[in-house]
């Protein structure tokens, strides 16, 4: 019986992410438009955009069309698998299937998909794009891994349900390591969801979408969908890890509060994206490297119980 519930729960999570992600994108676009004194598209426009793309002819292009297709499928699949591991107002459905390490691997898999996509396209722009993507990944992924590790150290377990419950803070209050990691994650969050000022690997005005340069139609839709899902899932992860307060409330309240927190985070991303210029790759890497230093300090502090 519990397996049925697990499957149903996983389906619910996946469905929820698929349903909400374009809405978040719609809100993001609408708010951006308002900041820019524009009308902006209808709230539901991202749904129509995806439907339109999905209905287009499925062209094969680039150096390795099979790999290109595979990368598109894999990117959305990886994102949705992560969705099953993250509590979305309820306990994570695939809680028992893996631990925090699995989560870290799955998140890097999304970056690998961009790499595959860029390699498959084989154009100069996509290659420059993936080299930037990889440079970012190498410096970014450890940040999230360390945040989860700090949580694991505090909670004494790698289990998802114990880490993804505001574990960077201890019952006793706010330890230094948790506060440091909160600051680090806030400062790098824009990069995790690949928005301005850190949309360096796609940089439309420099690289013409970089790795995605050869994508069109349904495959582009999948990639875009994965990117929208990424925003929601990273926001959810951030909320479970750093803003756990109020999750314990009874059903509709706690659940609603969770989603309100997620959307507040989306708003934050929007405002930052609308008020910044894109950084250059070397400037970004230097920034990430600084954050990495801080997060190592946090990890050391955590292992001493601070």
């Amino acid at each position, binding site marked *: 019986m519990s397996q049925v519930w697990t499957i149903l729960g996983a389906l619910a999570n996946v469905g929820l992410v698929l349903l909400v992600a374009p809405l978040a994108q719609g809100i993001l676009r609408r708010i*951006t438009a308002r*900041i*820019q*004194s*524009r009308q902006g598209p209808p709230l539901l426009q991202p749904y129509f955009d995806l439907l339109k793309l999905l209905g287009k002819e499925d062209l094969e292009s680039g150096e390795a069309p099979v790999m290109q297709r595979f990368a598109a499928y894999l990117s959305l699949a990886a994102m949705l698998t992560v969705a099953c591991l993250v509590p979305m107002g309820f306990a994570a459905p695939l809680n028992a299937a893996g631990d925090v390490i699995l989560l870290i691997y799955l998140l890097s898999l999304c970056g690998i998909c961009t790499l595959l996509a860029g390699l498959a396209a084989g154009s*100069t*722009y996509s290659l*420059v794009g993936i*080299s930037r993507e990889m440079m970012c990944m190498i410096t970014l992924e450890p940040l999230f891994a360390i945040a989860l590790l700090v949580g694991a150290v505090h909670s004494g377990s790698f289990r998802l349900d114990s880490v993804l419950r505001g574990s960077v803070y201890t019952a006793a209050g706010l330890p230094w390591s948790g506060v440091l990691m909160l600051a680090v994650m806030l400062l790098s969050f824009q990069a995790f969801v690949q928005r*301005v*000022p850190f*949309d*360096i690997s796609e*940089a*439309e*005005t*420099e690289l*013409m979408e970089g790795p995605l340069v050869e994508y069109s139609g349904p495959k582009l839709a999948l990639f875009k969908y994965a990117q929208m899902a990424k925003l929601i899932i990273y926001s959810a992860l951030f909320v479970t890890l750093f803003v756990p307060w109020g999750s314990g409330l009874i059903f509709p309240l706690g659940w609603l509060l969770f989603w309100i927190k997620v959307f507040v985070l989306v708003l934050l991303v929007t405002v930052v994206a*609308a*008020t*910044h*210029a*894109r*950084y*250059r*790759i*070397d*400037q970004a890497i230097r920034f990430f490297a600084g954050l990495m230093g801080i997060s190592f300090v946090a990890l050391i502090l955590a292992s001493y119980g601070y």
Partner: protein
Amino acid sequence: MIAREMFEQFKQRFGPLILRADLPSDRRLFVFVDPSSVKYVCQHIFRELDARYVASIGSDDRPYSGNFLVAHNFAFDRDHLLCSVLTHLPPDDPRIDSITSVVPAAGWAEREMRDLVGIEPVGHAYPKRLVLPDGWPEGNHPLRKDVLWNQVPEQYDPDREFRFDEPPEGCTVVPFGPFHPTLDEPAHFRLYVEGEMVRGCEYRGFMVHRGIEKLAESVMSYNDIPMLAERICGICGCVHNVAYVQSVEEAAGLQPPPRAEYIRTIMLELERLHSHLLWVGLACHIVGFDTLFMQSFRIREPIMWMAEKISGNRKTYALCVIGGVRWNITPEIKTELRAVLDKLESEWRTVVAAVSRDKNIQKRTRGVGVADAGLVKNAGLIGPVARAAGVDIDCRRDHPYAAYDRVEFDVITEQGADVWSRVLVRAKEVFESIRIIRQCLEKMEDGPLQLEIKDELPVGRMGLSSVEAPRGESHHFVITGENNRPRRWRVRAPTYQNLQGVPAMIKDQQIADMTISLGSIDPCFSCTDRLETIDLRSGSVKVWSQEELLKLARKKVER
């Protein structure tokens, strides 16, 4: 220093090298020299007298004087003097010493002369094809008078491809263009890249030539050409319109009525306003800051509406005819324009205050795309690019035209020589433009809009006009001719010079900085690509042949 004094100085220095001279006014000097001494004279003018290189013009003068004509134009900005060094070349062997070794800025102009008129610059440092399409046969020069304006040579091979130079050792090639989101028009930069660093580049442009100069010299008339001239550019069209008309007026010795001069000034400044606001927006878009892009376009829009109220068009004002203007500024428009300017000024102040405090934008633009005063001199860079390097030049003050000698304004300079300084220069110039328009509205006197011209314009006279476009100096050179049209009309748009500085500006920078460096000169490829007899994309379209496409396009125009 007026032209006569400068000519005395020339006579002392060059003596018998000067064959004859023409001093039509205090601010113009035409010096005819022997072909063999052109290089020496130019070197002296450019290096010792520290003149600024403006343009080189080749002209087929065989039907009239029996010779080819070459002119190298220089500007003495501090002395308010434009000077042209001319020479005649024999019809059977049009060769001339290249001046590129002493005046590097002449590189493109001489290549263009070679392509279009067939005048061979001997000793040119890089005599590669510049303007003509790749499949155009050698030895056919469209701007020669014996070539018809619509003639395509039989040997024209639309499938031949351009041969690029070999990239340097250890570099990969990143093609930038012909189509790229930050290029609004086709141009091709072949970047030689090592990792993320640009080590060099080759430029291939001139892909959308429309044969405007040839068309003007063969089928249009004096008063048609202003309308053609403003179609050279989609942003600074009025500049070309005014510059052409002024050069013809100068050649013919006509003085437009004062009210017309004020109206020209107002329209030119309106154009600068909307162009600068557009540029700030685009520059922000290039570095990914779309909010300011949208805001500056919003602020810009009322200017477009004012232009439409005055001329009936947001762009392409069709403003000038020889000897005057076609649109009046009525008292109602005056009031409205004042209100628009007030609103613009306060809004722009907010934007400038926000931008100049923004560390994020400065991070992307400081120390990027550096063009120092040395490069400005050698590559002949102009406009905001020069002023951002502390080179204090502005045609509005140095070579006053229209009503600029009757208004007060400051020439904005910065010292940084980088993209950030160019942002500041343009941002501050917006306020100066507002100031100029306000003064014009104040001082504008009543009177006729056009000069009554009864006689035919004199033949074989030369006129120069430099107009400060938003991007820099737009220089027009006209030789008047028979059949109510000029014999030769040469346009040197600002981007023509500024693009030649780009390879030096992007060298040893990151690719990410390439787009904003290029963007910072506010490139206008249609201005640069203005001449060519036929333009066809070289056979990359498989389903449609060029002929079919052309037929289709013509059918559409015929309706």
